């Protein structure tokens, strides 16, 4: 048994606590957990029985996967209470035999799963849904859904890679090393964008972060869904997969205009303008667009950590008058990114999230709400680059496509998640069902398509 699997509880990272606060807020206001999802669209040959067996073995060897999350004595920073993880509580694998033919549409059950609750206090952290077509002969759709803090996006891909390696017999379920498991704190500290040591230095950084966030309130954002409110969560999403030619055109534009290693800003600019098109259609002004972009804090070049969230946030704010021209917008985003990294915004964010470990989750959510005048953000956005690069098969089946999806609260009610798989761009749009009309959705997609490909007119 690895050292990290010992009886000692495992602390949540600052980012985990940020996401735990979101979960509490989503449950309170929208009756659903804050979940994330990874989808694989598989060909024939998925070994269901072997997969179920693998999940049981992995869960037994790794108590964190079923550990209740709680705050010791009701006061201390929350932990994965691994000593109290139930031995027999393996993550559930739900199998759905589909009688309808397979299509490009994502199965409804995957949306339902994002609208469900998973009780963190009972260790309900992870579940799988397997949709089989023709008993698996026509392929399988696979969804892994998890409480957003169990893995971040990179960690979830590492976990899938690790399951695949276990299936191939290259790894054993109990083989997780500390760097891959939970014991990463020592690796992220003191390197790159890690938070500084010492409570005073951290306090100053957290305060600088809060001051920067408070500056956004001068022209607060407005989301398409409107401010936070109590309403049942009803999410759906679709993923548009661009063909190889369109993808290579989009990737080339992103590289040329935003830079070889920073294409994320190109995609962010396109998604801001797609939301702007809907505001314009409604005859409304957003006042400003405020969007968080995840910054990965993993040590660069090290073997990837699987569990917990190792991220900070870079926040961007742009105004409607800066959005009209794509090149102008992209230039502003580039300038903001550089200025914020220069001022230490990422480290400040990490320090602020570390402090949040001590704050009651509702207090933290209320602070965020107050600063942004009832909104959490204009929308959520992620560009995660190549999806599971180098992994062609999963548990016996070819991976035909794959992408991330994530829950988005009733406000802001819209999230765009982009990634690449085998030379094809996947553009996922997760939304609260009543936020976009059919005409608005069409305008959103048309604008996004124009900016990604640099063409006039939609498809």
């Amino acid at each position, binding site marked *: 048994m690895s050292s990290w699997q010992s009886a000692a509880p495992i602390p949540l990272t600052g980012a985990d606590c940020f996401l735990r606060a979101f979960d509490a807020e989503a449950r309170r206001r929208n009756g659903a957990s804050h979940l994330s999802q990874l989808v694989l669209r598989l060909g024939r040959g998925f070994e269901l029985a072997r997969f179920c067996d693998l999940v049981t073995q992995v869960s037994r060897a790794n108590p964190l996967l079923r550990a209740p999350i709680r705050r010791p004595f009701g006061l201390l920073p929350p932990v994965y209470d691994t000593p109290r993880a139930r031995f027999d509580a393996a993550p559930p694998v739900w199998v759905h035999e589909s009688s309808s033919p397979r299509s490009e549409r994502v199965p409804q059950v995957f949306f339902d799963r994002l609208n469900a609750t998973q009780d963190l206090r009972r260790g309900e952290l992870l579940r799988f849904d397997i949709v089989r077509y023709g008993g698996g002969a026509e392929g399988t759709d696979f969804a892994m859904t998890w409480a957003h803090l169990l893995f971040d996006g990179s960690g979830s891909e590492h976990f899938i890679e690790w399951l695949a390696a276990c299936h191939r017999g290259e790894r054993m379920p109990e083989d997780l090393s500390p760097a891959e498991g939970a014991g990463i704190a020592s690796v992220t500290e003191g390197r790159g964008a890690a938070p500084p040591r010492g409570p005073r230095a951290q306090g100053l950084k957290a305060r600088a972060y809060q001051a920067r966030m408070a500056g956004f309130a001068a022209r607060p954002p407005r989301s398409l869904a409107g401010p936070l409110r109590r309403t049942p969560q009803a999410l759906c999403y679709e993923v548009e997969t661009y063909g190889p030619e369109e993808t290579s055109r989009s990737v080339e534009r992103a590289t040329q205009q935003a*830079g070889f*290693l920073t294409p994320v800003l190109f995609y962010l600019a396109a998604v801001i303008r797609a939301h702007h098109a809907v505001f314009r259609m409604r005859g409304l002004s957003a006042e400003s667009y405020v969007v968080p972009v995840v910054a990965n804090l993993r*040590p660069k070049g090290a073997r990837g950590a699987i569990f917990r969230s190792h991220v900070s946030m870079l926040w961007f704010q742009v105004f409607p008058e800066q959005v009209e021209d794509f090149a102008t917008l992209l230039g502003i985003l580039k300038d903001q*990114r550089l200025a914020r*990294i220069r001022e230490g915004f990422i480290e400040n964010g990490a320090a602020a999230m570390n402090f949040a470990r001590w704050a009651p989750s509702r207090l933290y959510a209320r602070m965020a709400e107050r600063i942004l005048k009832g909104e959490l953000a204009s929308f959520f956005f992620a560009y995660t680059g190549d999806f599971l690069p180098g992994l062609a098969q999963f548990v016996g089946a070819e991976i035909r496509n794959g992408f991330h999806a994530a829950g988005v609260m009733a406000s802001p009610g819209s999230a765009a998640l982009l990634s690449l798989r085998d030379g094809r761009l996947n553009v996922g749009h997760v939304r609260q069902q009543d936020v976009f009309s059919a005409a608005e959705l069409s305008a959103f997609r048309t604008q996004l398509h124009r900016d990604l490909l640099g063409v006039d007119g939609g498809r």
Partner: protein
Amino acid sequence: MAAPSRVELVRIIFDILRTQLLSVGSEFTEQSSLVDAGLDSLAVTQLLLAIEEATGVWVDESLLTPENLASAESLAACVYELQRRAS
């Protein structure tokens, strides 16, 4: 203070990468691929800021081509050229 020579620039950039930004072992050399070693969008910006602090030269992000980021040596050549033009 005299501007660093090309050889010194290679050493400066290599040291920043090895000690501050990348989690790499002895297999990482001045000729190693930076992207393969784990340099990403955040790390490359931190690298530019560290180079500016050490040399006073700012490398515009438009110069971050695959060729210039091929290795510490090639990036040093790019910085050296910028430094030479500025002097």
